[in-house]
């Protein structure tokens, strides 16, 4: 018999090592009508940290509320996740966190997790002005990098950026400096990111729950009309095959976000996959077919003429010089359907194996 704990009166099985938060989240996904435990410092890919205290729960026999993300389940444990007492505690916590932050509502273009904080403030109807005092964190004044905005006025010191950089990316480019109101996420020697170990992979941006770290390239589209739409695809660069969500606004690709459940990347990207997508809408893109004219220059034409010219050219060459005079080179950058048809065109069209791809260079 598997061990069980009770969550809000429901008996639930668990496996050794599971935390109360993980079990509760599992139950919640099975019963969508129930409410999720709120979190701010939690990212399922990172080690539990227990700093934001929003995930606190009541456990029978424990005099204080405990953080569910760091509490391992033990048999017979009885847990309550949403009592009035807990919810009041969470609301007060959110109000305290909000009081430090200069801006709560941020554009979702800032990053994948950027709405987590404002969503919770709304859900708990937290009074963001309940506690006076001053804001913590200052925006980095001189970092002119074109990728990552560092608005530390919005930082709530959840350390997700620091932890994702260390635990997921393995780069240890950033850490925390000072304590309390003086807490500041920074690099070694408090430099700009370019002079640190940062590789601009963007993982810190995508895990930030407040938008303090923001995708500068995506924010170019802040004023663009239309809703954000995401489409799952795969990065166009190396052979790792990172799954990405293409973020489009009124038919323009405005950002790339990593697929947190991407089978090959689990939420990671590199600078190319994260930020190097402007080529898609670049004015240099070919818009029409081109044919070389008698003047030796390439001229715009229509598909009908271009395709006729292409087909006639191949037919003429094959008739004049034989079927072994035509060669096809397929690409490692196109979808497989293109490569499949390239080889089929050569084999079914000429009966030769005069087909290769770009893998030899």
């Amino acid at each position, binding site marked *: 018999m598997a061990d069980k704990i009770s969550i809000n009166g429901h008996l639930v099985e668990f496996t050794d090592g599971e935390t109360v938060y993980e079990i509760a989240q599992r139950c919640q996904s099975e019963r969508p009508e129930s409410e999720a435990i709120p979190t701010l410092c939690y990212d399922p890919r990172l080690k539990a940290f227990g700093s934001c205290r929003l995930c606190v729960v009541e456990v029978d026999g424990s005099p204080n509320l405990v953080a569910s993300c760091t509490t391992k389940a033990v048999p017979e444990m009885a847990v309550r996740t949403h009592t009035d007492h807990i919810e009041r505690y969470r609301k007060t916590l959110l109000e305290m966190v909000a009081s430090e932050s200069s801006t709560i509502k941020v554009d979702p273009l800032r990053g994948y997790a950027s709405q987590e904080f404002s969503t919770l403030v709304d859900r708990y109807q937290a009074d963001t002005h309940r506690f006076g005092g001053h804001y913590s964190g200052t925006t980095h004044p001189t970092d002119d990098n074109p990728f990552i905005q560092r608005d530390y006025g919005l930082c709530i010191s959840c350390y997700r950026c620091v932890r994702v950089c260390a635990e997921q990316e393995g780069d240890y480019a950033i850490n925390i400096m000072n304590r309390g109101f003086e807490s500041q996420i920074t690099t070694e020697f408090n430099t700009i990111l370019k002079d640190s170990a940062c590789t601009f992979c963007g993982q810190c941006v995508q895990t930030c729950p407040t938008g303090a770290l923001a995708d500068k390239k995506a924010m170019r589209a802040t004023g663009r009309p239309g809703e954000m739409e995401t489409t799952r695809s795969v990065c166009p660069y190396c052979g790792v095959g990172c799954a990405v969500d293409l973020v489009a606004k009124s038919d323009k690709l405005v950002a790339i976000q990593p697929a947190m459940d991407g089978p090959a990347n689990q939420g990671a990207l590199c600078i190319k996959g994260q930020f190097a997508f402007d080529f898609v809408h670049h004015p240099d893109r070919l818009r029409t077919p081109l044919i070389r004219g008698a003047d030796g220059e390439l001229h715009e034409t229509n598909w009908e003429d271009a395709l006729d010219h292409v087909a006639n050219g191949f037919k003429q060459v094959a008739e004049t010089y034989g079927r072994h005079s035509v060669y096809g080179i397929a690409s490692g*950058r196109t979808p497989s359907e293109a490569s499949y048809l390239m080889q089929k065109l050569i084999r079914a069209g000429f009966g030769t194996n005069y087909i290769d791809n770009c893998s030899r260079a």
Partner: protein
Amino acid sequence: MSNPLIDMQKPDVIFCIGTNMTECHPVAAIGLKKAIANGSRLIVADPRRIGLTDLANLYLPLRVGSDVALLLAMAHVIQREGLVDLNFIESRTTGSPAFLEHIQLFTPEWASTITGVEPTDIETAAIWYGSADQGAIYYTLGITEHICGVDNVQSLCNLALMTGHIGREGTGINPMRGQNNIQGTGDSGALPNNYPGFQAVTDPQNQAKFLGKYGRKTDLEKGITKVTALDFCGDQIRAMLIDGENTLISDPNRKHCQQALESLDHLVVIDIFLTETAEMANVVLPATAFGETDGTATNTERRVQRLRAAVSPPGQAKPDWWIISQIAKRMEIPGFDYQNPKEIFNELCSVSPIYTGLNWDRVANGEFHWPVPEEGHTGTPILHQGEFVNGRGIFTVVNYRDPNETISDEFPVWLTTGRRLTSYHTRTQTGRTQGIDYLLAEEALEVHPDDVRDWGLMDGDWCHLSSPRGTVKIRVKATSRSPRGTVFASFSFSDVPINLLTGSGYDPITETAELKVCPVRVESLF
């Protein structure tokens, strides 16, 4: 890759050779970093002090093009120390007696004279890898872009076979593929020797099978490779259809390549930009790009995933599959009446034994590693479990050969080429992206600081870099990432066309160019 990417976190000894993974496959390198954080030991063999060497427990700074010597000596030590997995050799391999006798000749001391690596470091590497519970090899083009590329790969296979580090979780021979769908394009049969699914064109049964599918009998002889085809341009080869490759910049020996393409009667290029190659074409056809195209791609771990369109293409740009179909239809080739990429992928699955169990809908979430030999099969994340594809693992007797050109009084410096984190290949895409210039605005030749001084250069100044095939002007960057006597540049920037210099020799089997070794002369402009 014989093993999936997730396995990178599992080996207790990782041997990376000829792979600049933190720059070229950064997300894969994350797995290595996690393994190291969990106590795995990392051995890195590379001529340059690349980023991976900062993570390595043992760094083997070998001379460019000396890999076979290093690997022979490692095999020698593994045998000498009694670390050969005799059970595995007995039950799973063939050819071991000749191989085990052959490697007795190649001591670490011998290899040291060729590679420049200390004999004790070669011994340590061999003992670590040989005594690992799970040892895994990762490599990239630093292994294959040599005249002895096949020898290099076979040397690595020998190491894995003699230690039994293959066919199990956290082991294997793992080439990191460089392009998003370079695996898929080979899978699809865009090769002169194979039909889709790596079915040999020389097998009459396959010929008959595809005669049935395509309605035309295809030659039983292998086709020529792209490299040979470029050599034959203007002579036997008179027309080319190039889809999505900037051949002129990415291939070695640019002058030769330009003359080849110029001599064609009919050159058709399908691309998203007017690349240097497209500029030479008779007809240029505009294709849809990433984010505008539905299709499939197969990654380096043989995982088939779906690509999806999110935005409209510019102007009249069309998907590659549509363009190729239209050309075929106008040439009255039957079997090109496709309505969408789904029909094409499903046809590919129906003719390819490694994709038989897949279809368009089944790959929607990218869960499957090929081979997927039948419907309901869950895929094959780890190859060679229990049995090799060809039955037994074959040992190959390999000997060291010098690169095609070696340094001389006239060309006294080794040039090796590669890629950088921020640029992708010929920069047709990363060069057209805002922000990339902030990190890397121009190409530079990486030279050891002592060489900068001894050769009369200055950090940041221009120099001339010459090989027997040409000269390029390039800025000098002093860095101890380059060893003394070896310089490095990428081929990404068209204003510093490094591939004017490269391309003296080719591997005799794959015809892959020796892009990693090129003797050069470095001269100050002043």
